[in-house]
């Protein structure tokens, strides 16, 4: 994993108790798998309580990517972290609904700002 060129790694940025994952390239299946592993490792390493995945640049989400995102959400919840996906494009949203893909355990927000507010909310709720 560490010998992969930097350009093909999706960045994971820590902001407070949250992680931001901006997906800005059309991912190969290998990148998708690596991302899942890396995000979960980062949650464990940082003790993050929220993960914000920014897909505002993604023009396509197929079932493989959808499964990866669901996987992150499922495993993140086991590690007590909430997941929010932000910036889904209209064409992607429509296609996902038509694909019949159901991604459970994920929140959705319009943009990073709203997403961070949502993660803070989930954090408060879990500590209440």
């Amino acid at each position: 994993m560490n010998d992969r060129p930097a350009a093909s790694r999706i960045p994971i940025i820590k902001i407070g108790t949250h992680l931001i994952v901006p997906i800005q390239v059309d991912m190969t299946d290998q990148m998708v798998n690596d991302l899942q592993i890396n995000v979960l490792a980062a949650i464990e390493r940082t003790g993050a309580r929220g993960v914000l995945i920014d897909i505002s640049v993604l023009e396509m989400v197929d079932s493989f990517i959808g499964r990866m995102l669901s996987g992150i959400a499922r495993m993140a919840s086991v590690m007590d972290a909430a997941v929010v996906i932000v910036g889904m494009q209209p064409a992607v949203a429509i296609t996902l609904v038509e694909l019949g893909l159901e991604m459970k355990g994920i929140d959705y927000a319009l943009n990073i700002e709203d997403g961070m507010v949502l993660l803070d909310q989930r954090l408060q709720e879990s500590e209440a």
Partner: protein
Amino acid sequence: MAQTGKAGKMSERTIKNLHQRLNQLEDVLASAAAMKLNVRLEVTEDDELASTEEAINVLLEDFSALLEERKRAEAELQERLQTIQRQQEAINELSTPVIKVWEGLLVLPIIGTLDSQRTQRMMESLLQQIVATGSKMAILDITGVPVVDTMVANHLIKTITAAGLMGAECILSGISPNIAQTIVHLGIDLTGIKTKSTMMEAMRYAIRANGQKIVNVARADQPRPQEAPADE
């Protein structure tokens, strides 16, 4: 008719004249056949053939007029068709307006029957506006939708689900008792979708959900309301 030299025989000049006129006739008729109707025969003699020539000229005149009339009618029809097309487009635009009522709230009043094409357009329009305006909430009002069948319901559900994936919540309002009955009878599952019977209720919900409320503000020309005595 023709001048005869000897009894029964036509003079050479007459024959030549007849030839000429018959050729002219042929040319004019050929022209007419090719839809060039602005030709006419030159009638110089005054004999039986001349009356035929005049008759043909009248015929050509009539045909000319008819053709002009037809072209005019066709042009008018084209123009009307174009007007209808323009009006259709205008109706399409009007029929799926997405209105930003205030920060973060869109209203989509749906009026008329929903077919596949129209619903697709409406869905795209709403989702695009959600992104463009950054609105987290949208009210889809179906007061003006006469019939809600499974297809319409599915389209609405698809739109609302897609908006949800984008981070916007949709409220379905304007559900009459009739439509509510239909929805139940058809076994349409609206779980997870917020529904309100009227637009007003939907607006109230949206305002509350946004952490806001509407208050009455004292008017300048009215006395301030008496302060209630503080409880001890």
